[in-house]
């Protein structure tokens, strides 16, 4: 065997003799590079390893171990591993200052696949025999745990051969371990030991050595670098306790004992551990503890001081019952499940008979937790509980008690609902469904609205379970619900009945259509202005059944295509009838009708089958109704009403957004033809009248329909081309700048923005933008006409939005043009408000739903680009002109992502505090709301400004100009209590004292906020408070 190269040899010596740790690097590198083998290293270390000097031996061993750790695993040969293993095992008996290095070396070997079979056993044996683990320092103990863990991971079978010796060795090794980092590893070893070794005679010892940590009481030191949390330890320990059923006889009594303690965390841990162990322990091991467990769990649920403990107790019960249920195949187990449930039922039964008392609900919760565990359990519980509840219902005459009984019953149904979802087994409710439904039907005509409402809730719960309500009951339910919807005077009953019908309509559309829909439509027809003798109609409905109400109900139950196809034509013909006869309140009713159409479309348009149907019926019909009204300006027409037209546009948009490309293209083309060329035939409207909606000189009834154009053109998928885009844009620009009719001008501006946003980048667009900006600047700087300037601002704002959101380079020029207006006395504020338009999501155009061209993170970019200019502008503006800048900043801050805001915040806060001094209530409110949310998100920044902030907030809470300002200021003041104690506590007395004014505010809603805020401040630094 060749000697080491001189260089390496030198380094070896240097390390062993001196304290030069850097020499290690060179030696390790030589081994890593293959320049030197490990055996050569051992050989050259020879005399040092056996030196009589302890320090020399220690240094030599350290060098060997360190090099071993740093050399690549494939460099090690089996032979070397064997030699090293033998060497280290031998050295383990050496001086205590050598031992750590030996363990370090063994740790490296334990991870090496080259270690020959059998060595692991030797290593483990020698460790168990020679090392008194708990006398070592933390790192060395950890090395041992890691060695064991490595072997258990890769050489489990070999270690299993050691049998009980391994178990005993490990028990002795970890007995008394205190370090949380080591415990995490020890727990994972213990889990494997408990599962894979014959712990037999040592079961109790192993349990003792583990369970002494229960319940874990550990708070990591502040700034703990190791990152071990209480939760890690709790879960690690819980896994060991739940590792084997052999622990049951020791563990369950321990859990029972800890459960009886007064410490909430101990209770919680015990209950969670019980839930984790139950299944593993199995029915047999738990048998002798069932009575004790039941009474302990019941006690927690009955007292229920902490919601968490109650929930954990219920989960524990579910786990126990699930365990008992698992072995139902054996008769014996069925017996013990039933036995357990019977004793539970016995304890709960009499409480179920006392709906007026507190323990009714906890008892029901216990039974429901048990029923939740399994189908057999559910069946068994229901078999007893259902007849009892039904009987109690008959016995108790008071509505409030009956109400409680019904709600408890419904909770049982919900439990049953969850039980078989996903399986084919019949639901445990099935045998009782007649009983239940009869019970629910029986209250539907009760004088007490709460009871009727519960009856409906019960039916809804039953209907919610697949295949439980069938046959005649389906018809009966639908019939009842339909009757309640139309005849019950209580709003809650109406609402719940409508919801139940809507759910039913999804599963059983035919039943609902036949039993209910016709009646609803009948009402609409009877109330139809054309129908005579309303009073003679057979159905005399309750007062609440206005057309508006029927429409809302129709919208709610139109969930299934079958039903949609029934309701939509009726709604459209109802609208047509309204237009033709124009009775009193026609506008309102038309709005309600269109709104109903909109709700139906919005809810069901995702269903592809509906889209084409909507184009054919809704889009074409509404478009022709609206446009034929528009061309006929001589007669008054409902659809001349701008607000009605807006809803028509809303409906069209909802359809257009969902259109597939092919359909979208067709409808866009015909719409543009109609609006640009006046070709009404394109939308199947046969009239010879002239239609020039984009011409400023046309009557407003025509020009305002531009919003229908935009509803289609600006809402379809982005890759649907807009024909004649340049001409269209030009006309929209002119119309928006020149129309005196405000809705027209705004609709045209929005339309234009939608078009520009989708316009492909190119020379055409560039030219248009250049000319447009010149034109707008011309109007803004030269015109005296205030209205014209305002219109120009609106156009500028909408165009800026269109460009900014798509990240178009011209966006920043447009923004500059806009900001240049901020100091203008007449329109400065309007221009600043434009920032709101630019950043907020508009529902009609330029939204994601409308397939607008939106670049990711445009808000963030816009913020970064413009904030400095705004802050400069604010600082330089005269006092009277600062408001516009503040307003724009405030809008910016409202819309940008929190992360960005927090980054830019510190220099802004003083400016924001100043904005509170202003006289603009809406600005004050938005700034105050921002402060409230920043308290959570940027506590440091708010803390820094607390001196300026608190006096200002207190002033506004007392003397804010409007209720909203005072309320927002009080919310803000209240939120401050979550800041670090040292920051806010000095203000406690002052705030409490000054809020005494606000609790006497003349407005009740302000007082309510003041009471809440003052309450928080009173609790600050007070025992039982914060």
């Amino acid at each position, binding site marked *: 065997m060749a000697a080491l190269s001189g260089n390496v040899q030198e380094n070896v010596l240097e390390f062993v003799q001196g304290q030069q740790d850097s020499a290690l690097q060179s030696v390790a590198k030589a081994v890593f590079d293959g320049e030197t083998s490990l055996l050569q290293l051992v050989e050259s270390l020879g005399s040092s390893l056996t030196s009589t000097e302890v320090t020399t031996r220690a240094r030599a061993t350290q060098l060997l171990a360190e090099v071993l750790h740093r050399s690549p695993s494939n460099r090690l040969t089996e032979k070397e591993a064997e030699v090293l293993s033998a060497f280290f095992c031998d050295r383990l008996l050496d001086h205590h200052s050598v031992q750590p290095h030996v363990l370090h070396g063994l740790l490296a070997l334990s991870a090496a696949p080259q270690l020959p079979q059998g060595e692991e056993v030797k290593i483990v044996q020698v460790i168990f025999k020679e090392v008194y683990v708990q006398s070592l320092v933390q790192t060395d103990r950890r090395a041992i745990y890691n060695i064991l863990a490595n072997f258990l991971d890769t050489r489990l079978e070999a270690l299993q051969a050691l049998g009980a010796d391994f178990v005993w060795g490990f028990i002795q090794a970890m007995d008394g371990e205190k370090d949380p980092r080591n415990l995490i590893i020890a727990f994972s070893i213990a889990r494997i030991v408990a599962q894979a070794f014959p712990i037999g005679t040592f079961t109790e010892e192993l349990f003792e050595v583990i369970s002494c940590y229960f319940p874990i009481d550990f708070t990591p030191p502040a700034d703990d670098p190791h990152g071990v949390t209480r939760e890690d330890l709790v879960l690690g320990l819980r896994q060991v306790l739940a590792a084997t059923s052999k622990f049951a006889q020791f563990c369950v009594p321990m859990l029972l004992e800890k459960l009886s303690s007064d410490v909430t965390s101990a209770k919680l841990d015990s209950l969670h551990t019980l839930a984790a162990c139950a299944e593993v322990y199995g029915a047999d091991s738990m048998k002798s503890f069932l009575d004790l467990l039941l009474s302990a769990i019941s*006690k927690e649920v009955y007292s229920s001081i*902490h919601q968490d403990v109650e929930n954990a107790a219920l989960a524990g019960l579910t786990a126990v019952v699930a365990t008992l249920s698992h072995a139902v195949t054996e008769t014996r187990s069925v017996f013990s499940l039933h036995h357990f449930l019977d004793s539970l039922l016995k304890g709960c039964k009499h409480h179920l008979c006392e709906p007026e*008392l507190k323990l009714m609900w906890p008892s029901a919760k216990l039974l429901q937790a048990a029923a939740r565990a399994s189908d057999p359990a559910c069946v068994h519980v229901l078999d007893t509980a259902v007849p009892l509840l039904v009987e109690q219902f008959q016995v108790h005459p008071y509505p409030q008690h009956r109400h409680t009984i019904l709600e408890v019953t419904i909770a049982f149904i919900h439990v049953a609902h969850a039980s078989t979802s996903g399986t084919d087994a019949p639901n445990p409710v099935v045998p009782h469904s007649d009983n239940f439904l009869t019970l629910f039907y029986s209250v539907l005509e009760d004088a007490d609205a709460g009871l009727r409402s519960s009856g409906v809730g019960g039916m809804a719960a039953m209907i919610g379970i697949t295949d439980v309500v069938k046959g005649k009951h389906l018809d009966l339910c639908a019939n009842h619900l339909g009757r309640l919807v139309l005849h019950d005077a209580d709003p809650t009953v109406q609402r719940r009945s409508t919801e139940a019908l809507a759910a039913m309509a999804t599963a059983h559309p035919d039943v609902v259509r036949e039993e209910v829909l016709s009646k609803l439509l009948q009402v609409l027809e009877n109330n139809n202005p054309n129908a005579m003798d309303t009073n003679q109609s057979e159905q005399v409905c309750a007062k609440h059944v206005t057309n508006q109400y029927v429409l809302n109900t129709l919208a709610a139950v139109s969930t299934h295509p079958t039903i949609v196809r029934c309701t939509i034509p009726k709604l459209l013909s109802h609208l047509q009838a309204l237009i033709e006869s124009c009775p009193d309140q026609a506008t309102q009713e038309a709005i309600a009708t269109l709104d109903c159409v909109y709700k139906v479309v919005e809810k069901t348009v995702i269903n592809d089958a509906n889209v084409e149907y909507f184009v054919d019926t809704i889009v074409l019909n509404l478009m022709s109704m609206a446009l034929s009204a528009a061309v006929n300006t001589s007669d008054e027409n409902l659809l001349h009403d701008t607000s009605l037209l807006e809803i028509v546009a809303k409906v069209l948009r909802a359809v257009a957004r969902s259109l597939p490309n092919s359909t979208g293209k067709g409808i866009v083309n015909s719409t543009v033809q109609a609006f640009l060329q006046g070709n009404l035939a394109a939308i199947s409207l046969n009239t010879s009248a002239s239609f020039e909606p984009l011409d400023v000189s046309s009557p407003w009834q025509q020009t305002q329909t531009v919003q229908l154009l935009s509803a289609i053109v600006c809402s379809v998928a982005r890759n649907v081309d807009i024909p004649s885009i340049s001409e269209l844009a030009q006309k929209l620009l002119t119309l928006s700048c020149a129309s005196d009719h405000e809705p027209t001008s705004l609709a045209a501006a929005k339309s234009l923005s939608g078009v520009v946003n989708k316009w492909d980048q190119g020379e055409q667009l560039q030219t248009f933008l250049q000319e447009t900006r010149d034109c707008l600047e011309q109007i803004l700087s030269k015109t005296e006409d205030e209205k014209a300037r305002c219109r120009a601002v609106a156009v500028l704002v909408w165009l800026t939005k269109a460009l900014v959101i798509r990240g178009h380079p011209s966006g920043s020029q447009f923004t500059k043009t806009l900001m240049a207006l901020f100091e203008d006395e007449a329109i400065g504020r309007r221009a600043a408000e434009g920032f709101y338009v630019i950043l907020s999501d508009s529902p009609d155009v330029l939204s994601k739903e409308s397939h607008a061209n939106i670049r990711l993170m445009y808000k963030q970019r816009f913020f970064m680009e413009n904030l400095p200019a705004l802050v400069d502008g604010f600082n330089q503006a005269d006092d009277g002109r600062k408001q516009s800048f503040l307003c724009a900043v405030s809008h910016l801050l409202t819309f940008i992502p929190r992360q960005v805001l927090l980054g830019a915040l510190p220099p802004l806060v003083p400016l924001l505090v100043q904005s509170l001094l202003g006289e603009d209530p809406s600005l004050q409110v938005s700034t105050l709301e921002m402060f409230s949310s920043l308290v959570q998100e940027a506590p440091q920044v708010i803390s820094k400004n607390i001196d300026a902030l608190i006096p200002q907030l207190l002033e506004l809470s007392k003397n804010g100009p409007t209720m909203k300002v005072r309320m927002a200021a009080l919310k803000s003041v209240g939120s401050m209590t979550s800041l670090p104690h040292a920051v806010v506590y000095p203000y406690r007395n002052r705030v409490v004292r000054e809020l005494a004014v606000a609790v006497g505010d003349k407005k009740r809603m302000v*007082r309510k906020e003041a*009471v809440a805020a003052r309450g928080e401040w*009173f609790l600050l630094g*007070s025992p*039982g*408070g914060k």
Partner: protein
Amino acid sequence: MSSPDRLQNANPQLYGRTSEREVTPEELNEDVEDAIDAREIFDLVRSINDPEHPLTLEELNVIEQSRITVDEDNNHVSVEFTPTIPHCSMATLIGLSIRVKLLRALPTRFKVDVHITPGTHQSEHAVNKQLADKERVAAALENQHLLEVVNQCLSTRN
């Protein structure tokens, strides 16, 4: 106070909760002055937690709107509360919580009287006298343990 066997009344009768007060158009009108009325006082005290049960005073019927009177003109508020059982040892604590809540939530111009509903507690007179003694109330609130219990009764439970 945590286990049912130590509760004086482990299974008390329960009552429903009143729904939230509807906001009226007058309340939204800046210029109208909203008088403090019995309902407003009721809303202040009904959500106080019972010291023993995870229930509110309203759910235990300890507080009822009909037992609250407000005289805005003379700045006087009177609240009667009804202990769940005549020998309830928590009566003073409950009364103290009500008093403290109103102390914190009402403008200082109001004189507040908190009494036990006549005939519903065996130590009615003694409890009433204690609750009326502002010096004792002030001293009680400087007692950290008592203050903690009162604060817990006044904290909103989640």
